[in-house]
């Protein structure tokens, strides 16, 4: 009859994980003026919204960590969010086995513990990723409205410039639906 012994395995892990998510979308810019000029007008509107211009890019980082980058040349917007977190996990596990199986049992127990640690870290990483995805998703509706507004104002500015090149502008009237009427005397 073999003697029973107790095996105890204790493992811990500290890992820094980085998660990110983001989306890219085109902006509906009408080709009223040359692309460069349209980009300029859009940049001006975006600067009024707190964007910082650097060459062909206008960028803003919001308090919730969402970074919005507008490519003025290609008229595309990228909204992205990232997070980094230090995750710590530890497991302490014991089991009783016959003394003749000690070595194998200890190896199996350690493998199980390491696998479980990996699973726990993966689950926490995924939870963190879902958290930032949720933040970004919540933001997109408002961001779309904000950018549509900026694009709309840039379009009106472009139309006004175009009208000026045709003659003297008599009046610019915008109704509640956002329709703009520009009267020009040729």
């Amino acid at each position, binding site marked *: 009859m073999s003697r029973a012994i107790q095996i105890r395995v204790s493992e811990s892990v500290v890992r820094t994980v980085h998660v990110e*998510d*983001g*989306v*890219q*979308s*085109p902006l*509906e810019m009408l080709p009223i003026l040359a692309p460069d000029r349209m980009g300029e007008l859009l940049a001006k509107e975006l600067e009024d919204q707190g964007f910082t211009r650097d060459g062909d890019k206008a960028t803003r980082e919001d308090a919730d960590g969402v970074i919005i980058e507008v490519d003025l040349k290609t008229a595309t*917007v990228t*909204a992205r969010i990232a997070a980094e977190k230090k995750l710590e996990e530890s497991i302490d596990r014991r089991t009783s086995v016959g003394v003749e199986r000690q070595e194998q049992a200890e190896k199996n127990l350690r493998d199980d513990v390491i696998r479980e640690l990996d699973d726990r870290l993966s689950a926490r990483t995924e939870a963190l*990723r*879902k958290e930032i*995805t949720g933040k*970004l*998703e919540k933001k*997109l*509706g408002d*961001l*779309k409205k904000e*950018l549509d507004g900026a694009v709309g104002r840039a379009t009106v500015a472009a139309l006004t410039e175009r009208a000026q090149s045709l003659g003297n502008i008599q009046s610019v009237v915008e109704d509640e639906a956002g329709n703009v009427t520009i009267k020009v005397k040729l």
Partner: protein
Amino acid sequence: MDDDVLELDDDQIEEVSPLPQVAPSEADILMMARALVAGPASNDDIWSLLCASRQVPAKIGTTSERLLGDILAMSWRALWRRGGTKPQPSHLDGQRGRLWERYEPTDLKFSAQSLQFLRWLVTTPFSAPASTLKGLGAAKLELGDQLLVYFALDAARATPALRVIANQPFVHNAPLAWLGFAQYMAGGNVPAFDSLTIGAGPIVVEALTDEVARRWQAGEISKRSMTDPTELITFGAAQDAVLDGFLDACDRRNRRDLAGFVLDAVQPLLDRNIMPSPGQLDPAAPLSVRASARTSAGSLLRALVRWSDWDQQHRGVRFIDDNYQAVQVLLGRFEKIGSAGVGRVQGWLYELSGLVVAPGPTSD
């Protein structure tokens, strides 16, 4: 009674040739070939045939070879039944006619690979778990072989065997199979489509245009109920690769008319205002993956935009240009979509790539 008996001379008696005799395993191969070629007109239960498994010898006898040749020769007839009889304008001069009136008689070549494929279908018990089934390796296929593969996929369309057949490297080498069943063949390398634009290829494609269009249209509608973004991305990538490859091949050979199934597939979606947008993608998936899936859903719409670019080029062809007559056929083909249809498709594409990844397919 004896007065009624007529005596016949020897030359009046027609000799009846005995029924050809083949081995049971060969009979199974012939029955499978007959069921595939007959297609929707077949009386055979295709699922029963696919579930049965029989060992077949490495070679077939000369009688079976002759009978198999006879069955495969019915492929032209099968194509006429599937859509070749409809009078259509010729791609050269717009003259209307049935397929055989518009093209010179052309050989439809089958190779020994057709027999290999039939043997695999007969020996494989498709009711068993897919992981236990022996695969069929890649091979160089003639157009006839491709057509047999297409017929097999079509025959198996309502059975679990469809995905098993579509996943074989052998089947991945058949451009015609990709054209008809891209959504089931995701994951493989898309071959070149030139074989479908030369020789007998255009005749086969024209005969199958209506059913290929119906299948693509059904694929677009199925996107609306897809929830797994990864699956949609794979689906869209396969469609993009097939459409890019096939439209390029058509363009190279001046056979843009062969890509008419794109218009036929999109037209009913426009008529009923059905946007191929996924309804509710898994909300647990990253936003980047969901956005990518929505963009992928626009494969067929992007092909229509390419058709629209072609249409602009066609409008620039003058009466004195050599290809004026041919271009009139293409202009007529695109007329039903028109600039209003292109505008709506571009709006759908914009919506699919829009910032807000939320449910909201539109339909009347």
